[in-house]
């Protein structure tokens, strides 16, 4: 396929279909409706299933049912809807079922508004639902990345038998950019655990109720080992203008794009600043942060929240460097001019 000009939400839909997504279950919520609409229009032709559910709770539980049969499945929503999906996410984690869940975040808490925001970072990276679990979280920052990471999300989900989140915001979903889609995926890993009827073999069950205390503990340690393996193998990040940087900005998604603009401006003013962009929020790229902290002693975190990822940056650095924060919660998209001003101010304060 040649380069096409497409919106973020449509791109996720097309990428999912190419990744072999066979089922989409969802409930409308702005700003991600175009994704559900794309699936309604295209998934059936591709031999798949689209159901508009009665709620997000129902949608995620439909995901549970379809994933249990071994199909590649997806749902999407935005912040208030993702809150409702937490029940199912916890069960997917407990059952060890693969699924892809897209969150185009909006302002909150409560109904908030439909403007871009990054207030669901804690909810996404800390499990979100009840119990001791994590979900890999991918945070694309361009339409091309929405395509690539959606496909990666399906693969990650299957590899580790876990739900995987792709998080963006209203801006990621609505903006149009050129994108090149990879060829459709044709071969999939065999899922021996899938419930397709026992046939002539032994019967199987998927359950998360574990009454025996020691067995429950074993199950949880097994999950922990899985998350450790994901943390060791699946970290993704981008370094931008970091080679000669003396000062580091950390930002993801939409905010990282704005930060790049700000960094270009600050560089013109002679500030040697670069960007560390986490692409996976869990696992968090903490190792590279520690490495950078050998030579850079000041980090500045930008977020469209009142400060959530900044905690992970501090945890990663564990006192090795100073961490400053500048954030705007949902409602207002910060500008490169604003960020550049903050960069300049921090640079003056720390280095002059």
């Amino acid at each position, binding site marked *: 396929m040649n380069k096409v000009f497409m919106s973020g939400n449509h791109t996720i839909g097309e990428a999912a279909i190419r990744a072999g997504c066979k089922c989409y279950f969802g409930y409308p919520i702005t700003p991600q409706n175009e994704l559900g609409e794309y699936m309604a229009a295209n998934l059936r032709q591709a031999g798949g299933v689209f159901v508009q559910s009665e709620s997000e709770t129902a949608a995620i539980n439909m995901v*549970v049912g379809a994933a249990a049969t071994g199909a590649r499945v997806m749902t999407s929503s935005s912040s208030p809807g993702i809150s409702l999906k937490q029940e199912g996410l916890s069960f997917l984690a407990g059952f060890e079922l693969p699924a892809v869940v897209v969150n185009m975040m909006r302002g909150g808490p409560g109904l908030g508004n439909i403007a871009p925001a990054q207030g669901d970072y804690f909810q996404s990276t800390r499990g979100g639902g009840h119990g001791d679990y994590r979900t890999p979280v991918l945070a694309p920052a361009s339409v091309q990345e929405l395509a690539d990471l959606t496909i990666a999300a399906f693969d990650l989900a299957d590899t580790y038998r876990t739900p995987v989140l792709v998080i963006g915001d209203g801006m990621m979903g609505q903006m149009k950019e050129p994108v090149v889609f990879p060829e459709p995926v044709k071969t999939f890993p065999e899922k021996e655990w899938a419930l397709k009827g026992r046939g002539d073999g032994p019967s199987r069950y998927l359950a998360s109720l574990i009454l025996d205390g020691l067995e429950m503990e074993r199950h949880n340690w097994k999950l922990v080992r899985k998350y450790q393996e994901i943390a060791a193998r699946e970290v993704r990040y981008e370094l931008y203008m970091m080679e000669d940087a003396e000062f580091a900005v950390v930002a993801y998604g939409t905010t990282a794009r704005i930060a790049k603009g700000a960094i270009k401006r600050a560089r013109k003013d002679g500030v040697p600043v670069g960007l560390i962009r986490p692409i996976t929020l869990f696992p968090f790229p903490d190792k590279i942060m520690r490495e950078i902290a050998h030579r850079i002693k000041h980090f500045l975190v930008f977020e469209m929240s009142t400060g959530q990822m900044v905690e992970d940056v501090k945890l990663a650095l564990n006192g090795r460097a100073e961490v400053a924060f500048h954030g705007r919660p949902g409602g207002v998209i910060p500008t490169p001019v604003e960020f550049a001003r903050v960069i300049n101010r921090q640079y003056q304060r720390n280095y002059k």
Partner: protein
Amino acid sequence: MKLKNKWPKYYKQDVVTHYCPGCGHGIVHRIVAEVLEELDVGKRALLVCPAGCAVLAYHYFDIDVIESAHGRGTAIATGAKRANPNLFVISYQGDGDLSAIGTAETIHSANRGENMTVVFINNAVYGMTGGQMAPTTIIGQNTTTSPIGRDPEFDGYPLHITDVVAAFPGVVYAERVTLSTPGGIRKTKKAITNAFQTQIDGLGYSIVEVLSPCPTNWKMTPVQSCKWIEEEMSKEYKPGLLTDKREEKRKTKG
């Protein structure tokens, strides 16, 4: 005389029951296993079991089983059936599960006419959590959260959810049966057979509501429980066929 009693193929033999003496779940489990075998669908069956006393149903059945979050059985069943229409999908649910927390899922899966079967155990209480009032608790019935008896002024009226969904065009077969007499148990088996056949024939949604004793939480003996079902519960929830659109559906299916 030779006993014809044969152990059902899809019912495990080596399981020590966790149900209380006189509980209806065990009877219905056995019926489900028998009908799976008689209609030859056990090999392609998926049972969705609920949060509630039947949460451990996967220990009893020798078919593929998935547990469900409380109330979400028919959503899980929808996902499984849509993803894999060849599966024979049963959602097994209690009245707390199906008619309280899962009301939305129940109504909408029925209204979509999902080609699945719901086995609905109505024991008029939340059994597993210790006998609290359920939507199905009858007027005057004592429970731990209606200690002076359900008073509709404060607690609302008993919910007849099967009657509600029976009116939907997509609901092809709905029957209410009771375990309180041997005849009732025979009718239960017949109704479950009809409901399963509805799904096998691809006609749409089928549901069987079973009035089932919970001696433990009713604080009665098993015999008293059956009598209470006969004399009190069956007055509120009249056993009988609620809808049967099988012929109609067969015609429209051509």
